[in-house]
């Protein structure tokens, strides 16, 4: 986001209805120039619909879409200077890799030789020059994915749209491609709009994320914002792992709320505005913000018993049942085991967290 003054894509009050079904319920958002922007949400949340509306494959029922100030929602896809990387890549199977990448240039009026020369440069950028004479079917999934990227980037679109392009790749390749995509975005300076249902992917790559659910935008913010300060129950639950508990509010004072967890346990949480005394709301606290000890350590300490320890590679996940109360999951990084003790199953422990680690959420 080097130049935040310019808005690349401006979606204004966009609504999409299919008959009686509303896929998008009045979305407004501004995507900045040179931004890596992610639309994140579970399947059916409307993120792909929104992307296809920007690309021009779906018409807009109500509202408007602007591309660098020009209204584009009524233009056909071939008149919009945006390109798409499709989920299944959609490489033309009867053309060579070079002709695939050169297709957009040629359709824009470049001569065959000019298109081929520029396509060759693009293939160099994604390190696939040696495959230029092959057909798509002769390439691996990861290579096809990079060809799809090169093809969409070759005509130098103002905005690149990516529709879950990594979902077909295996984990290791996906991780590598995430970094490569991020580098490509920095190198080309083109605004990327990325659609995914994978929250980890979104957190890794994005400058900003719009979390969507049921056709509505739930939260818009940086990865850090969304992870550390989720607005509502859906965002807290969808992004990362969390302890999500229903609590009743006993008192609210200066942004802090004293809450009942059940079983006589009390906890002070960060309150959001509009939460009244006596109301039942959800509370979220990330497992890595918790640690166990044999005596209360932090301001917020809750007594319980270890139910289970689960080894998950880099971390150990400890499940603790509070006495007569709810269950907490605690994550301890294996590299942190010098400072933090792992208690055996059945041990009496205290679950500690610093003040403010627990947050109340609106539903």
């Amino acid at each position: 986001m080097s130049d935040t003054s310019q808005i690349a894509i401006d979606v204004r009050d966009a609504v999409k209805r299919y008959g009686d079904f509303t896929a998008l319920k009045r979305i407004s958002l501004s995507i900045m120039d040179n931004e890596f922007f992610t639309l994140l949400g579970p399947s059916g949340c409307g993120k792909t619909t929104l992307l296809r509306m920007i690309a021009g494959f779906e018409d807009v029922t109500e509202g408007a879409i602007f591309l660098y100030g020009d209204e584009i929602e009524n233009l056909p896809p071939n008149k919009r200077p945006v390109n798409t990387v499709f989920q299944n890549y959609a490489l033309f199977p009867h053309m060579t890799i070079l002709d695939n990448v050169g297709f957009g240039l040629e359709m824009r009026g470049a001569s065959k030789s000019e298109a081929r020369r520029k396509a060759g440069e693009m293939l160099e950028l994604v390190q696939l020059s040696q495959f230029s004479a092959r057909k798509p079917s002769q390439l691996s999934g990861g290579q096809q994915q990079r060809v799809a990227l090169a093809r969409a980037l070759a005509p130098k679109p103002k905005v690149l749209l990516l529709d879950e392009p990594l979902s077909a790749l295996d984990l290791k390749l996906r991780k590598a491609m995430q970094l490569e995509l991020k580098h490509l975005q920095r190198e080309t300076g083109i605004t990327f709009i990325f659609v995914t249902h994978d929250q980890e992917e979104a957190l890794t790559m994005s400058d900003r994320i719009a979390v969507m659910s049921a056709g509505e935008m739930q939260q818009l913010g940086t990865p850090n914002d969304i992870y550390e300060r989720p607005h509502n129950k859906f965002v807290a639950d969808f992004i990362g792992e969390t302890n999500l508990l229903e609590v009743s509010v006993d008192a609210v004072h200066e942004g802090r709320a004293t809450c009942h967890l059940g079983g006589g346990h009390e906890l002070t949480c960060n309150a959001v505005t509009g939460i009244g005394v006596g109301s039942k709301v959800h509370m979220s606290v990330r497992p890595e913000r918790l640690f166990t000890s044999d005596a209360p350590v932090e301001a917020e300490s809750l007594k319980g018993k270890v139910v289970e320890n689960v080894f998950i590679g880099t971390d150990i996940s400890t499940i603790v049942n509070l006495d007569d109360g709810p269950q907490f999951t605690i994550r301890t990084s294996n590299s942190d085991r010098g400072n933090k003790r792992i208690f055996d199953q059945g041990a009496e422990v205290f679950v500690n967290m610093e003040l403010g680690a627990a947050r109340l959420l609106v539903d």
Partner: protein
Amino acid sequence: MASKKFDIQAFPGFKPITLLCLIVLYAPLVIVTVYSFNASASLTNWEGISLRWYADVFSGPESEKFKIAARNSFIIAIIAATTSTAIATLAATAMVRGGAFKLRTVSFGLISMPLMVPEIVTAVATLIFFNAIGFDRGLLTILLAHIAFCIPFAYLPIQARMQGIEDTYEQAALDLYATKRQAFTKILMPLMMPGIISGFLLAFIVSLDDFIITNFVKGAGVETLPTAIFGSVKQGIKPNIMAISTMLLGVSVVMVTLSYLVSKSDKTK
């Protein structure tokens, strides 16, 4: 036993029934082919290998008749297959890419129903139609009838092929600044080509082999190969008929094999 893998060959009578089916289907063809190379003028006595009857087809007393008939057959087959394939391609594009329009199921039924209608019914109906509009019977009536009944044969492989082509290819083309026409000619058409060729070959062979409808709608004195063969057989079967039949069989086998090979070469995989 129950856990054993399902094996159709273990069924009682599998082998004899298979053998019987193969014999019923192929023995007559094998016999005709073999006896077309018989040196004897008799249909049943084998007197050694000879190409005598093939020579007879090309230079014998009936050769002129067969030549004209063969030429008619091939001209009609080429034009009918080309025309019906073009129509079928457009129909398939509308059916597969036209979205869920009203009467789509009905349209599909209307296109493919001629395959189910007994050919004699189609033949009679076509004849009555030509008579009703006062159309003189001749080569043109044969051609028109062939175009009509070849459409469903050309249509089915094209539709099957097109259903296997995801519409994201065209979307990708549009996304990359192609016009709708360019997306069709540069992307969709080449991808459909195996289906189109397959449909053309099928239509060609169906037209080339047709007897019933042709016999009804042809004018007096106008013959195609099947009607000429039938006319010749009415005056008694001679071995030259077997030679013609074998050649026709050869053309059919080549066409069907080509059609199969083309439809198998799937470029989208």
